Structure formats: structure tokens, C-alpha cells
């Protein structure tokens, strides 16, 4: 057997699809039309309306747009502590959840991939929490986190550790929510990684072991590089999902204690629907949209560059 170089993923890329027959493009538009109409009606339209509204003193309970304010809504938001702290909470949540959700998903997928017959069970066990609605997951974890009588406090007390007030302490509340979220959404990344691992040709590992590579070496030199694309996908999807945090926090703490967990989306909800200030809410939404766009773009660039140099 001659030495074989590991094929880079580019080499297995299929040839570019042949030029489409003429006229098929027009037919495609017809198939796309229902989607495009709904997209324009429910996404593009409201977004433009919100953009216009963000320059006005619009109210939920007054007809019309209200008084023109120029950039006053924006300057109010940018000088508001509540806005910046809610934005930081969203980013803090993203920082807390993204690394574990990528790394743990990879580790568990790696372990599950080694299982023979019982792999289906682990795939099921890790994916099961992901199908729970956010309300169910929030209820389960609120019970676990109940001070004094909850499961988490009970276990820690048994091993002699004084448990924190999980959701009641401003320092711990976000960490507690992050732990619950990792448990809840790990399964999605896990399944993506597992699918990726099963696509790695087994003969690579065989060849590596014949060449004397140990299990660790095989992981670092075969599994991780071959999963580069999956990691990019998982990391980008995860950052975007974490930035959209709302449900769990709204149900578990309603942004408390003392607003210490209120994410940007809940701030938008609070000012628009509870305070009825839809104009200001629209301005904050626009700012948040820009932030998500910048973060996602920057993140994509970093991951892409790393991947290229790897």
C-alpha cells in the first residue's frame, strides 16, 4: 500500500453545475412567488415601516405615526443605561453559551460516535431536550433552581456546598439561565457534529492507525480538520441563536432580578408593548438589528479566516 495523502475537502467538491437551460429562470420565479409575496408582506414591509416609525413619537394607543422626532429616539436609546445594559446582557449571554454549546456538542458527538449499537440511544438522549417548547424547559429549570427545596440546591447542600440563589442573585441569574440553555439546545449542534463525523471516511482512521497515530492524534489531525465546515456552521448559527435570546429569560426571571438578565429583545418588548412607545421601540430594534448584523459579520470573518489558515 502506497502512502496516501488525506484528501482536502476541496478535492471532493463536485464540478460546478452545468449551465441551466434557458427559460428555466422564469419558471423558478413563479415557484418563488408565494414565498416572495409573504416575505415582502411580513418581513420587508414591516421592517421598512419600523424604520419610518423609529423617527416618530409613535404610540401603541394613538392612531398614525405621531410627531416627527428626527433622531431623538436614537439619541435617547444611545444615552439610556437601560438600553446599553440590556444589550450587554444579550452579549454576555452569547459569550456564556456559545463556547460550551460548540465545544460540549463536539465532545459529546465524539463520544457518541464511538458507540456501536447503542448510538441511537445517545443521539436520542442528547437531542430530546431540544424538542421541548421553551415554556416547558423554563418550568423544569425553575423547579430545579427553586431556592432551598429545588433539586440543584438540594444536591449541592448534600455535598456540603452552600448553593447560590440561582435565579434570585443578579450575579448568578444569567449563569443559571445559560446552564439551562446549554442543556436545552445542545442537541441541535450535537446532531450536526454527529452527522459530520459519520461523513468522515473510516479508511482515514484506518490509515492513520497503521501509520501509528494514537486516538488523540487522530482527533486533532483528522476529526477536527475534517469538521471545519461543520464548526463554522455550528458557530455562526449558535451566535445568531444566542443573540436572539428572549423566551427562557422572559419566562424564568422576566428580566430580573433588578433587570440584571433583561436582554435587548425584552427591552424592545417592554418599551414597545408595555410602555406603548412603539416609535422608540422601533428605534431600539433598528439599533439592535445593526448590532446583530455587525456581530454576525465579524464572527463569520474571523471563523472564515481561521478556517483558511488551518
Amino acid at each position, binding site marked *: 500500500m502506497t502512502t496516501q495523502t488525506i484528501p482536502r*475537502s476541496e478535492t*471532493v*467538491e*463536485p464540478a460546478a453545475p452545468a449551465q441551466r437551460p434557458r427559460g428555466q429562470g422564469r419558471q423558478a420565479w413563479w415557484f418563488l412567488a408565494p414565498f416572495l409575496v409573504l416575505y415582502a408582506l411580513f418581513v420587508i414591509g414591516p421592517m421598512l415601516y419600523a424604520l419610518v416609525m423609529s423617527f416618530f*413619537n409613535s*404610540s*401603541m*394607543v*394613538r392612531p398614525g405615526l405621531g410627531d416627527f422626532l428626527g433622531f431623538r429616539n436614537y439619541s435617547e436609546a444611545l444615552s*439610556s*443605561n*437601560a438600553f446599553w445594559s440590556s444589550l450587554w446582557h444579550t452579549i454576555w449571554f452569547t459569550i456564556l453559551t456559545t463556547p460550551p454549546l460548540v465545544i460540549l456538542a463536539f465532545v459529546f458527538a465524539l463520544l457518541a460516535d464511538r458507540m456501536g449499537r447503542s448510538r441511537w440511544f445517545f443521539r436520542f438522549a442528547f437531542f430530546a431536550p431540544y424538542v421541548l417548547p421553551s415554556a416547558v424547559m423554563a418550568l423544569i429549570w425553575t423547579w430545579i433552581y*427553586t*431556592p*432551598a427545596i429545588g433539586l440543584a440546591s438540594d444536591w449541592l447542600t448534600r455535598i456540603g456546598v452552600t448553593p447560590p*440563589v440561582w*435565579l*434570585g*442573585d443578579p450575579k448568578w441569574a444569567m449563569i443559571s439561565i445559560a446552564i439551562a440553555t446549554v442543556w436545552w439546545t445542545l442537541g441541535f449542534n450535537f446532531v*450536526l457534529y454527529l*452527522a*459530520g463525523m459519520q*461523513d468522515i471516511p473510516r479508511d482515514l482512521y484506518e490509515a492513520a492507525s497503521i501509520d501509528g497515530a494514537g486516538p488523540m492524534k487522530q482527533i486533532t489531525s483528522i476529526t477536527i480538520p475534517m*469538521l471545519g*465546515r*461543520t464548526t463554522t*456552521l455550528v458557530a455562526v448559527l449558535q451566535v445568531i441563536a444566542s443573540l436572539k435570546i428572549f423566551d427562557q429569560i422572559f419566562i424564568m*426571571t*422576566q428580566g*430580573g*432580578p*433588578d*433587570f440584571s438578565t433583561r436582554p435587548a429583545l425584552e427591552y424592545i418588548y*417592554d418599551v414597545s*408593548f*408595555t*410602555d*406603548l*412607545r412603539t416609535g422608540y421601540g422601533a428605534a431600539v430594534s433598528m439599533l439592535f438589528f445593526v448590532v446583530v448584523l455587525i456581530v454576525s459579520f465579524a464572527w463569520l470573518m474571523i471563523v472564515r479566516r481561521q478556517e483558511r489558515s488551518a
Partner: protein
Amino acid sequence: MSRQDQFVRSSMPAMSRRSFLQGALAVAGGLTVAGCSTLGAGLVGSEVAPGTVDYWDLFGGGDGVRMQQMLDHFRQTNPQLGLQAVTLQWGNPYYTKLALATVGDQPPDVAVSHLSRVPTLVSAGLLQPLEPSDLEAHGMTPDKFSQRAWEGCQVDGKTYAIPLDTHPFVLFYNTDICKKAGLLDAGNQLKPLNSPDLLIDALTKAKQASGQWGGVAAVNGDTATNWRMFQSWYAQLGGEVLKNDGTEVVLDDAKALQVLEYLKKLSVDSKLMPSSVDYQGAVALFASGKAGFYMQGEWEITTFQTAKTPFSMTLFPNVYGGDTYAVQADRHTLIVPHRSDGDQKRTDRGLTLIRSLLDQSLTWAKGGHVPAWLPVRDSADYKSLRPQSNYAAAADAAVLDPPAWYSGSGSNFEIVVGSAVATVRSGQTQPEAALKQLKQDLQVLADTPPPT
């Protein structure tokens, strides 16, 4: 492109096409079979059950159970009128949904609202004024209501709400512990605790008698309790927080600091009350006899009756008031949200429900609330209801949240003030720093142009 990407991309459309078809079939089938089902009504915006009374409230716990009894009684006595009752989460979530449903012209026919929220709802144009002739037709005339409660429901000379009760902040005491501590008089009633020192003395004795805590009131994760406690004593000092519909913050530094220092003394300095306990934890401590006193709205009465705690209730201590008693309170009222069709029959059905609920005020009063409906409040049945009638006087000394578009029960205002008070009671912040923070946050709200 690597294979796993292809896997992800190619598997998506196949799955979604199939599930889309299944989903579409299910929806179409559901609509044909159910006809005017809830789903169908939701999709086309028609009424779920025409001719019935739609009613929303925000009652949980013992209140929720009693309200169900009262609604069941209404169903039995008015079988010709159906009733669709919905209970939503207390506080901002409830008022948010109420406002959105009314703006969307799909409001309930009758809803519960705290009186402190009524001015904002009126200025937002979400309430329908009730005509005196309609009210009279249902026997609801001003002379049948507690005067202060009725006056609170008038805005610009029009009646916008019907008062159901007053629910003051009160003092619960464990009769066994207080007896052991020598705090009860000959008639087994709590001796008055009408000064800062008397209250501290009583808490100290109760702490010795209970072996754990003198008293307890929720600190963490419950801004409302902290606000109620602060406001009661601050109002006894004659302090005000807001003026001119909330556009002006008039917080009196000296008075506010006096109350904050005292609150800090009770929990952090003297450790007579826990400095870290949430709402449920506070209830559990008092119910299990680990604290002699419990400070909360009277609605927790049912919890302790169920737990068979030996307890009684009285007015919240008049620590600073002297001759003029004051206590934080709010009132539950029944409102008719604005609807564009102005259907008289619908209003009529709503008023029938309101009258039925008022007539059952005694059932409601068992949950601790002081009735606003005089035929019940002045009845012998209510007066013999103990300990509920012990603190009926609080209804006239009630201090409601100051009117502002951001204030009222469970509002941003309560959250802002309550959060600051909580940090003092838990020892996280010094009174001066908390007061500074609180004034800053209130100023932001006061400076915001009102959306109504």
C-alpha cells in the same frame, strides 16, 4: 463544498415539503370539521362564542379559586348568558395583553384592573365610560359603594370603573409565637406597635420566641413587596414620590432615607428579618412558624388558612404616622374596555356580570380583601368575618400609587422603586446610594414624553 454541507442543505427542502403538505391538510381539515372553532375564529377574527360574556382577570392562588367559585355561581344563575373566563399572569404581562387586545379591537367584555392602572388606561382611550343610566338599571348607584373607592373610579366626571375591593398591605402575626413573646393583649389581639422602637422590640421578642426570625417580608425577585413596604412608611411620614401626572419627581430625601435606614436596620443590621428570601420563601417561613410576623398584602390569608398556621392579621404598623394612619394599598376594579361597535347588548351583559360579582363580595372578602360594595361591607356577616374585618379601616387610609403613565400595580414605577429598596434590604447597597439610583431612574421615566 463538503459532504456534510450538502447533507444539511439537501435534506431540508425534502422534509419541509412533506411537512408543509401535511400541515396544510391538517389545517384545512381542522377548519372544515370544526367550522366556527376557536382556531377558525382566530384566523378570521370573528367571535369565539357570540352572545357570551368574555371576562379577563389576573387572579392566582386563593383569589383565583374564589373567583372561579363566583364565576361558577354566575354561570348557574345566568344560564342564558355564557361566560368565557381567562386568567392571565399578574402585572405588566396582564396589562400589556389587555392594551394590545383593546387596540386590536378584540377586548374582553369585562376585565379586572387595579385602580392605580385606571387613569393610564383612560388617558390611552382604552376604557369605555359607564353611563349612569346603565349603572342604575343594574342597581349600581354611587351610594352603594365605599366613597373613596368610588371617587377613585371617576375621571373627568365620568365613571370608568366599578370598584370591587381595597387590598391593603397588612401585618400577619403568629398567635402562638406572639403569645409566648408576651405581645398579645387580654383579648388575644396584638398590642399596637406604633413606633419604630415598639416594632423592633416586638420583632426581637418574637425572634427569641420563634428561635429563628422575628418577622419576614420578601426581598429577592419581588419588587412589589419592597415598594409596598417602603411606600407605607414613607406615606406615614407624609412623603410623596411623583406629581403632575408623573412628570415631576418630588421624592423627599430626608424622609426616604429615614425609611430606608429603618428597613436596613430591620434586616441587615439587627438580623430580625431575613435579608435574602423570595416571595415563596417568605410565605414558607411564616407558614411553618419560623417567623413571628409576616408583612404582605392580605391576599395571602388563604395560604396560611390552608397550612393551618395559628395566625391573625391586623393593620400594618403605624410606625411614623402618629394620628394620621397611612398604608399602601390598591383596589381591584371591573372595567369595560373600549370597543368600536358600541354594542349596547354587550355592555348590558358585562354589567350583569359585574353586578353578580359585587353581590358575591362576601365570598371575595373571605380572601382577605375589604369589599367596596356597601351592602356587604356593612353587613353583620362581614363584620363577624375574622381576621378579615380587623383591618377594614385600612380601606380609608389607603395610599395608592401616584398617577403616571408608567405607574400602577406591577408597573415600571414599582419595579424601579422596589428594586432599589430591595438592594438596601439585602445589604447590597447603602441607603444613600440606593436613593441616588432610584431618583436617577425615576427622572428618566418622568422625562419621557407620555405615550398616552
